[in-house]
């Protein structure tokens, strides 16, 4: 069997990866999207209110539209986790399923993953009171008491969903002020069932079968009784694989790119939350835009490479 060599393989199936695939397929490039989680961050988002054309849309609904759009253009989509990137005169990727994939160009769009607190009880009570997805799990905390840990927009979005079900929502933050937008913080203050606990680190999550309380380092609030703990303490980029492949990262492990979304390795591009691009703004529309730019750069690259000669090295 002759192995297929794709014009572009896109690793990551969030908004950046899908948009890149929409563009590469429209450039007539054979395209494979390899995803670990179809939809990426959008799977745990709730509503999107800043994507042009949609005043307000459920995140998973918009993701489904983007997914269908991508498929309709002829991109192939497969579920796998890439464990190795090899660079000969083409790129060879090895997946956790044992499969190998070959391409002339790569677009890396693996995004970020949720940061964990790394405290005792966090892993033990996952699915038993500890959650990273308020959209998924808020319904199980009707008339219960929950804590949201974090101080950014994402923590407040979780608190907003939870306060519609829970009888009490604590927002526990390690600093004395929130990173979330002031307008969001102010509106949350008006809710009598929401309480802010500042300058506080959660040290342990306790319970028997399910969560019953948390321990903190705040001498005035050493223990807080809760039924649920929603952890929203930021994200880290999925770049372990890139480091091994010799792709340059910045000190926070995001992929360094230029204005064409090019990495330090010719033929490898990166897009979306995983990059240092676009002033570091992590937004859906920016991930999509970076995907489009990366696809355009990959297209220019393959065209030149096909031009150079048949069977030569694409990424000299």
């Amino acid at each position: 069997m002759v192995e297929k060599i794709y014009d572009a393989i896109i690793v990551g199936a969030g908004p950046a990866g899908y948009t890149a695939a929409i563009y590469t397929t429209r450039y007539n490039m054979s395209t494979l999207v390899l995803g670990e989680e179809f939809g990426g961050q959008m799977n745990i988002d709730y509503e999107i209110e800043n994507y042009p054309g949609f005043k307000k849309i459920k995140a998973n609904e918009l993701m489904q539209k983007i997914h269908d759009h991508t498929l309709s253009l002829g991109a192939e989509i497969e579920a796998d986790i890439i464990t190795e990137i090899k660079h000969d005169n083409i790129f060879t990727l090895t997946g956790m399923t044992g499969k190998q994939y070959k391409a002339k160009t790569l677009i890396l769009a693996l995004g970020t993953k949720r940061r964990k607190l790394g405290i005792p009880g966090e892993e033990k009570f996952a699915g038993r009171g500890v959650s990273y997805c308020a959209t998924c799990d808020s319904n199980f905390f009707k008339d219960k008491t929950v804590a949201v840990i974090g101080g950014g927009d994402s923590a407040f979005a979780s608190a907003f969903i939870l306060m519609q079900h829970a009888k009490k929502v604590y927002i526990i933050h390690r600093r004395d002020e929130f990173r979330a937008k002031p307008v969001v913080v102010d509106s949350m203050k008006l809710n009598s069932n929401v309480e802010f606990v500042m300058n506080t680190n959660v040290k342990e999550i306790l319970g028997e079968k399910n969560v019953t309380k948390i321990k903190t380092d705040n001498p005035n609030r050493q223990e807080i009784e809760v039924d649920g703990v929603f952890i929203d303490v930021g994200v880290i980029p999925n770049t372990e694989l890139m480091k091994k492949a010799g792709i340059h990262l910045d000190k926070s492990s995001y992929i360094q790119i230029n204005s064409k979304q090019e990495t330090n390795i010719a033929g490898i591009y990166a897009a979306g939350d995983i990059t240092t691009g676009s002033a570091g703004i992590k937004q859906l529309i920016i991930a999509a835009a970076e995907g489009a730019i990366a696809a355009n750069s990959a297209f220019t690259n393959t065209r030149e490479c096909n031009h150079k000669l048949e069977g030569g090295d694409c990424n000299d």
Partner: protein
Amino acid sequence: MAIIHINKENFEKEVINSDKPVLIDFWAPWCGPCKMMGPVFEELSNEMTDLKFVKINTQDEPELAAQFQIQGIPTLSLIKANKEVDRFSGFAPKPMLKQKIEAMMKNI
């Protein structure tokens, strides 16, 4: 193998009285990670034939979800002889999920 959807009516027949160990996928339509789990769960049901694969929609069957003390979805719960052997919460890609299920089966 076809995945059976469990409700209060068929719970006893399909889960409690099952000859094979049962793997339940607790899910809901509003849950993105559950949607990702769906096709993976279906593929695994064809590969891991020692288990009976069933699904419980926690929105339609809140009493069953409460009975199992489900507080997060997706959750996969492995049941043998009407006893929960082990459970696993959150989405994992297929190769990883298969390993997790195989590890859970060792506790049967």
